[in-house]
């Protein structure tokens, strides 16, 4: 019995230690950079917004949209995003969100008359996007969401607001992978339920047993750095963000082999909202807001910027 009691004491001590450790270091240093971190930490974790003017619209004329009615009565908007893609959809250590997708989401919210602080972000992994939109868990989704015909059966898309292409992220010292045709026999990682993963499978770019999948791309990147996989594949815009985070160890192959049109995922039957969001995007592309957002976010990782033509339907 004495052993049991000892175990209990140890358990409580462990717990107490755990809590104390959290409390002790609870210095409210909300701004990264002036904490204990040195210059080495300045790899761009801290979120900086592009500074584009996103003031909420005063009078919104949008009728016949069930989603907007919900937003209006609730006074807030729930947006599905990603949180681990630098320069696209990212959440930094202080809990701030930034990136191209995030600001596009804020742009849409502003046009809907919702202020930035009334936006509720939900992190939805690739595999659950359609279901989250269909189920009404989120009002709209902005997160490297490629417009495909198959998805159009489940959800509606506004946009595209950006065009990316599937590419490969490899270790810097690896010269054996030069493009999609050199993947045979190599271990490839991507996010479950994503289009890039399906393309690798459908085109048999590598053997089935060599495909690894995780919930998020950042897990794949970790596996790549640890040499568990040889390449991470998804859109170049995403990959460039990871390469920029770790330029001494990672590189993007730079031969895009697909065209991914990023759209804003909306409820399937909400045509009123779809038209409204398309108008909002058109306006932002015209008055320079789109460009400003781009330059302040994705532009930093060196992608080229072309405003894609909207595809209304």
């Amino acid at each position, binding site marked *: *019995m004495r052993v*049991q*009691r000892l*175990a*209990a004491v*140890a*358990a*409580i001590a*462990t*717990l*107490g*230690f*755990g809590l104390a*450790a*959290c409390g002790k*270091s*609870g*210095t*409210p*240093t*909300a701004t*990264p950079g002036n*904490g*204990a*971190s*040195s210059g*080495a*930490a300045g*790899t*761009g*974790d801290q979120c900086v917004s592009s500074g584009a003017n996103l003031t909420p619209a005063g009078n919104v004329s949008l009728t016949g949209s069930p989603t907007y009615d919900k937003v209006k009565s609730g006074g807030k908007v729930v947006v599905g995003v990603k*949180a*681990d893609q*630098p320069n696209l959809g990212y959440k930094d*250590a*202080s*809990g701030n969100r930034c990136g191209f997708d995030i600001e596009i989401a804020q742009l849409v919210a502003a046009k809907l008359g919702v202020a930035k602080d009334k936006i509720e972000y939900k*992190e*939805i*992994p690739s595999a*659950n996007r359609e*279901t*989250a939109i*269909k*189920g*009404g*868990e989120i009002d709209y989704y902005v997160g490297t969401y490629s417009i495909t015909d198959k998805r159009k059966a489940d959800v509606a898309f506004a946009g595209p607001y950006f065009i990316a292409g599937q590419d490969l992220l490899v270790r810097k010292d690896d010269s054996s992978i030069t493009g999609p045709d050199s993947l045979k026999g190599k271990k490839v990682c991507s996010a479950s339920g994503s289009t890039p993963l399906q393309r690798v499978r459908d085109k048999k770019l590598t053997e089935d047993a060599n495909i690894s999948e995780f*919930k*998020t791309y*950042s*897990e794949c*990147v*970790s596996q790549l*750095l640890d040499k568990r996989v040889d390449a991470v594949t998804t859109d170049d815009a995403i990959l460039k963000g*990871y390469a920029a*985070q*770790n330029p001494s160890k990672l590189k993007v192959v730079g031969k895009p082999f697909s065209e991914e049109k990023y759209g804003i995922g909306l409820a399937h039957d909400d045509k009123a909202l779809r038209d409204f969001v398309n108008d909002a995007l058109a306006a932002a592309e015209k008055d320079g807001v789109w460009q400003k957002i781009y330059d302040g976010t994705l532009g930093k990782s060196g992608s080229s910027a072309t405003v894609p033509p909207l595809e209304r339907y």
Partner: protein
Amino acid sequence: MTDVLYDLPGPRARARNLVIAVLTTVGVVAVAAYVAYRLIATDQFSELRLTQFQYTAVQQELLNGLLATLKAAVIATALALVFGAVFAAARLSDHALIRVPATWVVELFRAIPLLILIFFFYYVPLQYKLHIDTLWALVLGLTLYNGSVLAEIFRAGILAVPRGQSEAAYAIGLRKTQVMVSVLLPQAVRAMLPAIVSQLVVLLKDTALGFIITYPELLYAAKQIGSRGSFDFPYVVSYLIVAAIYIGICSALSAFAYWLQKRMSRSRRTAARPVPIDQAAAAEAGGVGGVGA
């Protein structure tokens, strides 16, 4: 029992035991040294990797994860206790029409992998355009599985009260409900309390399955923090922190269960033998209880 397996060691046995003890110590030290060496050689505690744990936002993230874990565990516990009570009563019913289906339900939910149960509530409603929060997918899965196990514990607790007790109660003219409420339950509750607490440890651990359906619980928070590339993927540190939290809470609960059991076995306020609190004790008296995930 264990101390009757061997005689008091003589000189040769003492020498041999000493050798074994030394070898074990060397082995343990070697493993610890190797782990420490790997931790240091790969620089797991570098300044960069520890940076974000100094921010309140990250600590808040961990705390939110812990609260989400506890929230799921508390709701699931409450629902599982109700589910268990209802189905235990049904299994003890005199009417086959109630007893047999209840038995099937309990057996079925104990046989389905918990993750698959959770998937039922996660994938299926969405297919029919119904929205179920990941919290509820997790909670409902936990409820059905742990509720079924609890039903078995409750049943075992009631059956552990000696037959003479209910026979005597019937003999003085009490009705079925009265026998249950005033004679069987008060004694059974004491007998099964340790087993219930022990099952709650299993339930608490199982909330970590929420990780797989992206319910933002403690393990999920650890993954988020660990997967930040700009801090050089501090997975090791973040997992060690949450492991300490899980082990701390679960050990405390387990120790509480053992303490209850010891107290119960000394107590004379129940005629029922305690329901064994886990698989291990089940070997001593055919009982129920889960391994969990």
